[in-house]
């Protein structure tokens, strides 16, 4: 055929568009819209979820996420510094922790903290949000440790040397010079971890939820059971997105601003 490469690629592209539209059209035509609306988009059911879904469920999800992430950052930072230590035992202990809690399903860790720990050691984590937050922090810490370590290692060695040559101690040089630069590097993966954690709060139901600690996913499933209708799940999904999308957009904006500052 007498077509140029560009013409051929244009034809291919439009063929893909057409096929996609056909597929969407076929799905829309074969869907039972009346049934779907009745089961998942019932306005009456939807309205009844408010304001509880926000003032109680979303609020608790955010509280667990905040506690879990701050705790996870602290644990991850300590583990990262241990992994970078010159002392073998520190490195091995940190590696062991990371392997275990990154390898275990989060659900298992939550059960460990919530039920095994109280029985085995007679230690009960205090606070309404205590056990759940701690379990999430332990899991998140294991994931963040390797990310933070990579961030610290990405900072050129000369930065530490310059800081030490000015008389700063190792700890001072780390906190004032190296760690702030490391965190800029790992901002995108940190956001990723935050979003994953937000969704992992849905596993906390195994601890047994009370009115005080119920989070979004459990709230949604309870409402489904009460109403014999799927609409609450759709509502919960929308609330999750209403939290994560602005969050990731905000971080992306922050990142763009930093890149501009570094380049300009």
């Amino acid at each position, binding site marked *: 055929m007498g077509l140029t490469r560009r013409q051929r690629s244009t034809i291919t592209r439009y063929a893909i568009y057409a096929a996609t539209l056909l597929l969407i059209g076929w799905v829309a035509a074969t869907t039972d819209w009346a049934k779907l609306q009745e089961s998942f988009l019932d306005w009456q059911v939807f309205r009844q979820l408010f304001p509880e879904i926000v003032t109680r469920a979303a609020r608790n999800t955010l509280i667990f996420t905040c506690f879990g992430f701050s705790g996870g950052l602290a644990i991850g930072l300590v583990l990262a510094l241990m992994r970078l230590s010159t002392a073998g035992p520190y490195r091995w202990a940190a590696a062991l922790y990371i392997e275990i809690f990154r390898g275990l399903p989060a659900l298992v860790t939550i059960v460990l903290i919530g039920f095994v720990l109280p029985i085995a050691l007679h230690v009960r984590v205090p606070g309404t949000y205590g056990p759940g937050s701690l379990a999430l922090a332990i899991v998140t810490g294991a994931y963040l440790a390797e990310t933070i370590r990579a961030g610290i290692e990405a900072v050129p060695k000369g930065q530490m040397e*310059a*800081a*030490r*040559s*000015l*008389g700063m101690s190792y700890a001072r040089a780390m906190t*004032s010079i190296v760690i702030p630069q490391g965190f800029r590097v790992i901002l995108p993966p940190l956001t990723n971890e935050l979003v994953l954690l937000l969704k992992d709060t849905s596993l906390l139901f195994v601890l047994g939820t009370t009115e005080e600690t119920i989070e979004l996913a459990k709230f949604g499933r309870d409402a489904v059971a009460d109403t014999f209708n799927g609409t609450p799940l759709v509502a919960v999904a929308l609330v999750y997105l209403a939290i994560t999308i602005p969050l990731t957009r905000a971080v992306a904006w922050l990142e763009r601003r930093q890149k501009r500052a570094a380049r300009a």
Partner: protein
Amino acid sequence: MSPNAKRMASASAIELVALEKRFDALHVLRGIDLRIAPAEVVCLIGPSGSGKSTLLRCVNRLEEPSAGHILIDGENICAQDCDLDRVRAKIGMVFQQFNLFPHLSVLDNLTIAQRKVLKRSKAQAEDKARKVLDRVGLLHKVHEYPARLSGGQQQRVAIARALAMDPEMMLFDEATSALDPELVGEVLAVMRSLAEDGMTMMVVTHEMGFARGVADRVVFMDGGVIVEQGHPDQVLGDPQHERTQRFLQRVSDR
């Protein structure tokens, strides 16, 4: 001898005694003895791999010597009880790659160690920062970030950062080697003016013109030992050793 008497007995700002450095199998420094008097400017020259940068980095123990002693103002800084951070605070160091802190403005680059190490007040530190920036001719860049400066400007800020600590001596580790040729002059000019003001300086350099014009003494190193040292006119103009002659021949051929 009491520590005080020991300090009195030594008139050297920097004294290296039988210094050795090994990196595993690599024997980089093979017994260096060197004394540098206060206000003296010493240039270290030699082929790459001769150990001159390693020697310089041993002076403030960024590199840990394998054997030997380092005395700063007569104080043995290899001693167990030596407060290394305090000693480093009075030894300014300038690096080949500048190593400015990219997340901090020029002003913060110059004040952070003053605040955290010397415990100066914010006002005191900023006052000092402006003075030393003015001295290197960059007072107008005080609120700029390092990334927005040229290489020569960054290195002058790095010198100012060291000067803000009121150091007793300065170490320069190939301070102009990473610069575009047309930016070398402005950095050398700052170094020259420091030398004229009586700063004790140890300078690892490939700039033979600077060594000839500014140094009180030139030390030629090769293979981890000091081969020859003396007045620049003598070492650079009339070298006695064959290795020195060959090195200078190669450098002037460039």
